[in-house]
């Protein structure tokens, strides 16, 4: 088990190193002259030179990269050009906001999608199954801003049940915050629903078709008990770990949802940074997202191997 964990962590570190190179190439190499990109074609040569000197972009690329990664490891991602504040401070606040939104989405989608997947599997091939599968697939592929727009039109404008912006008033209580986050969470819920329900359905069907389930039924155990003890227990535990790996997709969706609902999260921050050519903020934001994704994948893998007795016991011997 510990060898597996070490190997898995090692792979994650190599991936992060490669990721940091990709981000560096994207934000330092591709723009060419960074200061010229930021200041535009009409800035004087002296201004461009001064900004390059201030940003450190006049040094050799290898030096810049090593310096950037070194500082990042010490928790320093540099200064944002547009906000004139430390990138880590801006990212920290945005991450908290995004985490709130993501939590609301997960709390809604996980029970719903698990139930949907189980029902679809138990009614395999019947109308209920087709409705959940095709409906789930359709919900998954519709872009978040499209479902978000329809939700705003119906629930914020026509019915006026929810606010159309996600940012609650300053110092709002817990319930007010949750209330303003429900509408923006639903587009994320729709995208995740189809995926999680599909995986749950596949897991449950596999467990139903397994020999141990047949044995349990042939032994004459009641159907309800077989489903609870043999099918669900075997099917759902790994599925729950798979859900954790959905954090990556969630972050992609956050960009669009946060822009649409004008919510100050990490997605919105990266969007603003890329529009204003704030390369230090952009690089920091993308790097943080990559780290968040790798960590959640790592935790998902570890949870999966821990929850699955076959892997847990097998690795010990």
């Amino acid at each position: 088990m510990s060898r597996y964990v070490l190997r898995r962590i090692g792979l994650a570190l190599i991936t992060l190193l490669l990721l940091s190179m990709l981000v560096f190439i994207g934000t330092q190499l591709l723009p060419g002259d960074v200061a010229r990109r930021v200041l535009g074609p009409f800035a004087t040569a002296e201004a461009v030179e001064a900004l390059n000197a201030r940003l450190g972009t006049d040094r050799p690329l290898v030096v810049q990269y090593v310096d950037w990664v070194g500082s990042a490891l010490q928790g320093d991602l540099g200064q944002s050009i547009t906000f004139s504040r430390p990138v880590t401070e801006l990212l920290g606040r945005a991450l908290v906001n995004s985490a709130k939104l993501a939590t609301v989405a997960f709390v809604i989608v996980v029970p719903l999608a698990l139930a949907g997947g189980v029902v679809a599997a138990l009614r395999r091939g019947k109308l209920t199954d087709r409705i959940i599968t095709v409906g789930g697939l359709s919900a998954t592929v519709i872009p978040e801003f499209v479902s978000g727009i329809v939700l705003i039109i119906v629930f914020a404008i026509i019915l006026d049940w929810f606010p159309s912006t996600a940012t609650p008033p300053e110092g709002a209580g817990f319930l007010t915050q949750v209330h303003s986050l429900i509408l923006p969470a639903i587009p994320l819920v729709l995208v995740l629903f189809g995926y999680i329900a599909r995986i749950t359905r596949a897991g449950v069907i596999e467990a139903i078709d397994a020999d141990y389930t047949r044995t349990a039924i042939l032994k004459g155990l009641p159907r309800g008990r077989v489903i609870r003890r043999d099918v669900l227990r075997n099917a759902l535990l790994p599925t729950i770990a798979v859900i954790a790996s959905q954090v990556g997709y969630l972050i992609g969706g956050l960009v669009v949802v946060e822009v649409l609902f004008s919510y100050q999260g990490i997605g919105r921050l990266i969007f603003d940074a890329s529009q204003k050519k704030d390369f230090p903020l952009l690089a920091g934001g993308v790097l943080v997202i990559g780290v968040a994704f790798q960590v959640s994948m790592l935790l998902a893998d570890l949870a999966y191997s821990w929850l699955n007795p076959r892997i847990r016991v097998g690795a010990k011997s």
Partner: protein
Amino acid sequence: MTVPTTSRVQRWHVIRRSPTFWVGAAITLVWVLSAIFGDLLTPYDPLGTPQDVLNRLQPPSAANWFGTDELGRDVLSRVIVGARQVLTVSLAATVIGTILGTALGLVVGYYGGLVDDIIGRILDAFLSIPLVITAMLALAALGPNTFGVILVIGLVFTPLIAKTVRAAVLAERQLDYVTAAQLLKESSFYILFVEIFPNVTNVIIVEFTVRLGYAIFTVLALSFLGFGLEPSIPDWGLAISQHYQYLTGNIWWPVLFPALAIASLVVGINLVADGIAQAFEN
């Protein structure tokens, strides 16, 4: 050569009896036709005329079924022609990704070893960032343009498609016909592209349709975020981002109709992709 013929018949049988596939195909066909013949179908000039400004933000009526937008242009006409931009950009990106990814997957799967490991790690790094954000990063650096969108999506798809093709090639490599060709001292190029390639086309077709769905999803999200477009070209994502500020004033038509167009197109394409995937996997 009876084996492929039989499976082709079976596959067609599965597709033919799938109602969701036909619903998806019908929806997709409608949008493909409006992309090709859109200019003949539009009731008004989708690019608008100078006089249109007098007629801005009019609600749906007998004259303008879907109403008019902030410049007084006919929303229906722009929705019909808007299919062209998203379909061409997504298709071009997916074709680039499929060609490069297939070539890379064939080579990596056949030779294996160190190249395989390196590609695997780079792929993991790429996958740590959502596609929309990778594209935003590249477009911020290169400056927004349509060609950039095509290139970025195509290049991100390349390792993804290569991974799938590689797995298929690994399985094929073990088979007798490859060993026979190797013993005949055929060139690696010949074995890869003439012997193995025809046997992995199924995988490539499924991958292509699934990726096309993703490409459309991403292109629309990017155009909504305002990346990589010329503002004059009718575009559904851009139309929504330009008009959603008017929603609070109860002006919903320039936003709702492009949104419904997007929803129907992505659902249609993905029902087709799902039908094809089921037929090829069973």
